[in-house]
């Protein structure tokens, strides 16, 4: 089939098919899973649809969501950032110290962000210039950064932040009117990050280049993409978003805790893979990731509502990561087989 014919074909597609394309086939299965999950939890617990619970879910997904936006960029570029949770921890302590010692709220937020960005830059530098594989590099910094968080916290203890204005960042709401409970500020921040992230990934030279370098670094370099510079930018952005997540954690818990953000990377990485990214890089979308973040938030909320122990939840989260990656691999194999069958039938 020639390109011209193909274009005609596309124009002839029905509205339903086009709607499906807009959502994406992978995302469709996520939506179905989400609907099933919601139905299951709602049938078991009356509390699920209460506005308090909804707010709870929105607030919980904000922190994971911020980290997951950056993680999407990292994984699409064929990298990984295991240190994300530890970066959130360091950034949180820095933020809490700035707010309490220097008395500056804006400085606290900016400081947390900047610290996150700096640590991201450290990650990229290790990968670029010491040629350490991303998994090993960020596994190392996961330990190192966590240590730093404890070292900069006075006596390694949490730094209490009792500023009511600052606390709004964690639990405040906007757009409250009538019966509508409003939206948590933290959720709105995440939503803005997600929209901007999606725009960057799909519409900018930088974003498209991330897909190229993830799909085939050698070819991307020969097409003029500077891989080292890309990595510096990607890990710095991811670090800044982890830092922001750390700041929000401080606002929510009213303290900068050195161990804050533990396990955040696992949730973010799971979301990215569940959202359709490939382990090998080159594929994945922020939209898919955010759907998966929502799914995870609902799942973990549901397990809490149904009184499932935290330890079981940890096991479940681990399993989910394996399932998410396995689905991606299975999909790839299946697509190849289908293509081969079509070819054999003479339609290829």
């Amino acid at each position, binding site marked *: 089939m020639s390109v011209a014919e193909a274009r005609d074909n596309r124009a002839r597609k029905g509205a339903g098919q086009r709607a499906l394309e807009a959502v994406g086939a992978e995302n469709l299965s996520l939506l179905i899973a989400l609907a099933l999950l919601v139905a299951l939890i709602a049938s078991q617990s009356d509390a699920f649809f209460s506005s308090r619970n909804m707010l709870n879910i929105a607030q919980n997904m904000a922190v994971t969501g911020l980290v997951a936006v950056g993680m999407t960029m990292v994984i699409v570029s064929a990298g990984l950032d295991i240190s994300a949770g530890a970066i959130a921890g360091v950034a949180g302590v820095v933020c809490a110290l700035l707010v309490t010692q220097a008395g500056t709220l804006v400085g606290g937020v900016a400081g947390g962000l900047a610290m996150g960005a700096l640590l991201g830059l450290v990650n990229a530098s290790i990968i670029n210039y010491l040629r350490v594989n991303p998994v090993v590099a960020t596994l190392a910094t996961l330990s190192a950064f966590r240590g730093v968080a404890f070292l900069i916290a006075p006596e390694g203890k949490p730094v209490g932040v009792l500023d009511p204005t600052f606390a709004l960042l964690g639990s405040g709401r906007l757009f409250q009117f009538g019966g509508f409970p409003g939206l948590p500020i933290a959720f709105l921040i995440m939503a803005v990050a997600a929209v901007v992230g999606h725009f960057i990934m799909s519409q900018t030279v930088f974003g498209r280049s991330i897909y*190229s370098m993830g799909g*085939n670094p050698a070819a991307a370099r020969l097409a003029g993409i500077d891989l080292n510079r890309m990595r510096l930018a990607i890990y710095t952005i991811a670090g800044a978003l982890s830092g922001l997540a750390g700041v929000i954690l401080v606002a929510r818990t009213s303290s900068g805790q050195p161990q804050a953000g533990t396990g955040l990377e696992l949730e973010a990485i799971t979301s990215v893979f569940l959202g359709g990214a490939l382990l090998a890089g080159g594929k994945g979308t922020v939209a898919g990731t955010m759907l998966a973040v929502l799914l995870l938030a609902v799942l973990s909320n549901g397990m809490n509502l149904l009184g499932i122990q935290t330890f079981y939840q940890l096991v479940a989260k681990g399993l989910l990561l394996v399932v998410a990656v396995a689905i991606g691999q299975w999909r790839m194999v299946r697509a190849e087989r289908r293509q081969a069958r079509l*070819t054999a039938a003479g339609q290829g």
Partner: protein
Amino acid sequence: MTASILDVAHVGKSFPGVRALADVSLTVAPGEVVALVGENGAGKSTLLKILSGDYRLDEGTVSLGGAEVSHASPLEARRAGFRLVRQEPEIVPDISAAENVFVGEYPRRSLGRVDHGAMREAMAAQLRRYGFKGLVDPDQAGRSLSPAQTHIVEIVSALKPGVKVVAFDEPTSSLTSDEVERLFQLIRQLKAEGLGIIYVSHRLKEVLAISDRVVVLKDGRVTGNLVTARTSEDEIVRYMVGRELVHDFRREETTRPEVVLEVSHLSSRWHRDVSFSIRAGEILGFGGLVGAGRTELAKVLFGEYPRAGGTVRLLGRERDIRSPSDAIAADIGFAPENRKAEGLILVRSVIENASMAVYRRLSRWGVLSDRRMVEKVAPVIRALDVKTPSMEQEVGKLSGGNQQKVVLSRWLAAGPRLLILDEPTRAVDVGAKAEIYRLIDRLARDGMAIMLISSEMPELLALSDRIVVMSGGRLSPVIEKKDATEEIVVSYALGKGMAA
């Protein structure tokens, strides 16, 4: 004819986007040499990989010495007696030649210890038996083996006890004529020992010299099964292409006075004192053997590999190119030899792959416009007649020729002044090949300077306005088109007449 030792019946195999084999049947009798010929992509390699157990067949059966081995694993295929002598053997660099011969089948002593002595002896005996005595030392490290020695190791490792059928995949592609003669002697010896031989080659003269029968594959089907003694090169070619071959692509010279690229005394890890220039509208052909340093030269010019000395001028201006992005900024394009490894992002779409190098030009403030991408790049893809269901199709699902056209469309969209083409028709079928020739011709006509690296002699001779030959990192004197013959290029490639 005696009963066949290998019997392939109605075998079919498909891959995403390609029907690789359909209803392929062939037999090999003991002591018979069956040549398997066909254009690139005709299905020869796929068939060999099915026989060696690397691929699973979709349909049909394979029997070896009377036992069915249709779904054998690589190990089972070996045990049943099928051995493949690969074109580019994979040698483990850190173990000895003897160990390479016995990889996966090490002779053992008690407690599972490897019997190094037995291995060395066995290899030495094999070398003596097949006339390779003194050419390879069993203790030599894998990394120190020359291409010819590597080939010997591969042959010796194929000829283990129990072997019934040996397949040679393009065995002569990196051999000198003396080495080819020695290989033929070996094949005659194996024939006499009653082995079945499959001989895969592009070189029809060799096929006619060594085989008893010629099986021709085209587009995954058997189109001819000819007795060698009663056929000719022309007849085989007719079966291969299914139509009269487009002989001798001729092009008018379109060289303009303006010098686009001027390289003076360039040196690098691979090169010494390389100087040449290419004018606008000129195609400068680079001949030479595999490993002579041509691909490396392309990569040095493109900023992928470091340049140690010398100057590079583009349009009269000296340029210090240190990275591919510098090269692109200097209006150079480069279509690498290995398009899957270095050219394409297989999991991304046709349009993305074609736009990659011009993202910046298609954007404002770093924001890409989809509309401009479709406006600027889609016409290029269409002009090259890329066969794809849509612009969003993943490139990995296209055929080899169409993939190559996507790589070319990337550089057409970029519109460089100098285009470096490294083996532009490698693994491309005949039809697409002719199209690519016409395209290269048109680009030169439009004033692009083209550096054409090609190991295919007819291609090099037909397309180039002038030819230089690289050998051991040095460049031969320029051969003008009127003087260019296969013999001259080959003699320079073998290092004759080169400045010391």
